[in-house]
């Protein structure tokens, strides 16, 4: 058996470099761009408004020093990074956004958006505290309606029901496709490394043509299936199988994932928002279009929701489906909700499955790499 990398990864290696140039061309051609941060941002509405949704990368360490000029140092690095990019024009995607969409997912972001609104036109969607209560669902629908109105006004368009239905179909198809990509990771050996899986999912935000992205993923899936047939893997057969969860860990902030793979583990699933979270459920097409969209996004199992039982149940199920040997839960320093939820999750998995669990609290710096390596290696030795 040989360890190798799928050839189709070449598309995804180039996605981000390409994006920086294509965004400029798109803008020159008059395309409207909406930047968004959280996976709860209803992308169907942006597409239906004839604009392009763009995830604003907040995964780089570089702008943090600028972010810290205005924000407390002991803040979540993701927030400091987002803000640092916003005030420095170092991020082309922020720079080219005509409108920025934010969600009040945590107190840090909520207050940061107040500062950010001085640099860009913004629509900040106020999230209700829970996705379970009917009153909260009804309230969220009004936020989605308000956002739709802001988009219409900003771009001087009417967002029709048909356009929402159309956008929903495109994004639902993409969700199903990404799910079948994830399923290939159930094989042993894994046909794709976890870092490459992350790269594909992250690139999704940088390929603006949905059909182009779908074609690239289809090609990759075909290659992965062939590899599985031949027993080819990106990591050795029998490598410890790890599910990564917690805060978003996009490219630039993939430190823990890298340390895991360097220590010989196979990352078989990335549950967080840089990974599969946004692709896991579809918009129910049988519902009234705007309602369907609102319901799908509100149901996102994020730790900012209370209670958040869905995430616990989901992880227990993923441990079985992906035959995982352990779960690694990552928290950014200063992220209180994921930090506390880590304990809840640990106890839940302990009780339901006895799954080995490692909680890592870190930031975007490399200063703790050695210490993290020891903890990760000890964790892998423990589940050996």
């Amino acid at each position, binding site marked *: 058996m040989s360890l190798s990398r799928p050839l189709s990864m070449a598309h995804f290696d180039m996605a981000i470099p390409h994006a920086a140039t294509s965004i400029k061309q798109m803008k020159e051609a008059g395309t409207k761009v909406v930047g968004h941060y959280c996976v709860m941002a209803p992308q169907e509405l942006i597409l239906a408004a004839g604009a392009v949704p763009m995830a604003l990368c907040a995964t780089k360490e570089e702008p943090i020093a600028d972010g810290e000029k205005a924000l407390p140092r002991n803040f979540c690095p993701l927030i400091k990074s987002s803000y640092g990019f916003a005030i420095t024009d170092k991020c082309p995607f922020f720079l080219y956004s005509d409108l920025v969409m934010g969600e009040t997912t945590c107190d840090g972001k909520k207050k940061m958006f107040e500062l950010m609104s001085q640099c860009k036109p913004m629509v900040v969607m106020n999230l209700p505290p829970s996705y379970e209560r009917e009153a909260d669902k009804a309230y969220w629908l009004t936020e989605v309606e308000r956002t739709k109105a802001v988009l219409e006004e900003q771009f001087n368009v009417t967002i029709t029901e048909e356009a929402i239905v159309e956008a929903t179909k495109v994004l639902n198809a993409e969700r199903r496709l990404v799910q079948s990509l994830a399923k290939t990771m159930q094989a042993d050996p894994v046909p794709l490394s976890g870092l490459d899986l992350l790269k594909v999912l992250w690139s999704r935000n940088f390929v603006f043509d949905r059909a182009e992205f779908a074609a690239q993923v289809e090609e990759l899936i075909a290659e992965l299936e062939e590899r599985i047939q031949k027993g080819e893997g990106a990591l050795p057969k029998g490598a410890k199988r790890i599910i990564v969860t917690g805060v978003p860990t996009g490219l630039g902030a993939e430190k823990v994932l890298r340390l895991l793979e360097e220590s010989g583990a196979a990352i078989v699933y990335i549950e967080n928002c840089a990974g599969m979270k946004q692709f896991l459920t579809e918009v129910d097409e049988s519902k009234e279009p705007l309602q369907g969209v609102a319901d799908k996004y509100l149901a996102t199992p994020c730790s900012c929701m209370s209670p958040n039982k869905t995430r616990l149940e989901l992880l227990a199920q993923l441990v079985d489906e992906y035959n995982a040997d352990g779960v690694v839960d990552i928290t950014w320093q200063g992220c209180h909700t994921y930090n506390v939820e880590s*304990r809840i999750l640990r106890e839940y998995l302990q009780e339901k499955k006895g799954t*080995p669990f490692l909680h890592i609290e870190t930031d975007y710096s490399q*200063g703790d790499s050695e*210490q993290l390596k*020891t*903890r990760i*290696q*000890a964790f892998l030795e*423990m589940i050996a």
Partner: protein
Amino acid sequence: MSTQQSWTIGIDAGSTAIKIALYNGQDFFCGQRPSGWSPRQEAQEMLDKAVKEQVAAPSEAEKTIKAIYATGYGRVSLHFANKAMTEIACHGKGAAYLAKEALALEKSLIIDIGGQDAKGIVINNQGRVLDFVMNDKCAAGTGRFLQVTAQALGLEVTDLSTIAEEGTDRAHPINAMCTVFAESEVIGLLHKGISRQAIVAGLHQSIARRVVAMVARLLPREESPILFTGGVSCNQSIAKAIEAELQRPVIVPSQATYAGAIGAALYAWEDQKGDSRT
């Protein structure tokens, strides 16, 4: 000593000291020296010396030494080792060996405080790690922390235990847990005229409190033993402070400093047994 005997060796290259343990399946021979500027060179010298004294003439060493396993902070730099394992696995194994009588029950907790970090490790009676916690980046409550504060008080680390005993009844609380802040807090207290005895006793209590809070999640059932290992376990006053904080007895095995090296040698031994070449 028969040159036919096989040996395995564990080396624990810690941040302040290097520990070595030689094992022949029956007995351990242990030694240590400060890590110095080049832990790798220190470890090599130590190994050569130990092999000469305990095992055989250097010409025989090749045949009799079956494996060398490295652990600790500097484990990856020891290029002559056959395998590197984390100190968590090795301390677990070593502590289980050192306290075998105590480990009748399914689970025990080891509190290990070393030069740079503090850990809590849950093991079964075979020394297998079931769960663990480790302090994060900062050195609060570790050997390094003790060293810095001892210096601020004009003391040697080795004096701390005795001095604390004299001040236990009037221990002065220390609030800062960051090494840098604790140092200035200690200096401030000295200026206020608080006795060194009371300050040291207070420091020990705060270390105990911190480590107990860290391992709280791992505490085993009432009857299960709790072991204290690592360099800082020589400080009996801290051991007592931990007992007081936990309200449970804590066992400090006699060779507690060597737990990591012993564990590494034991792992090497077990792996050799499964190896048909021997």
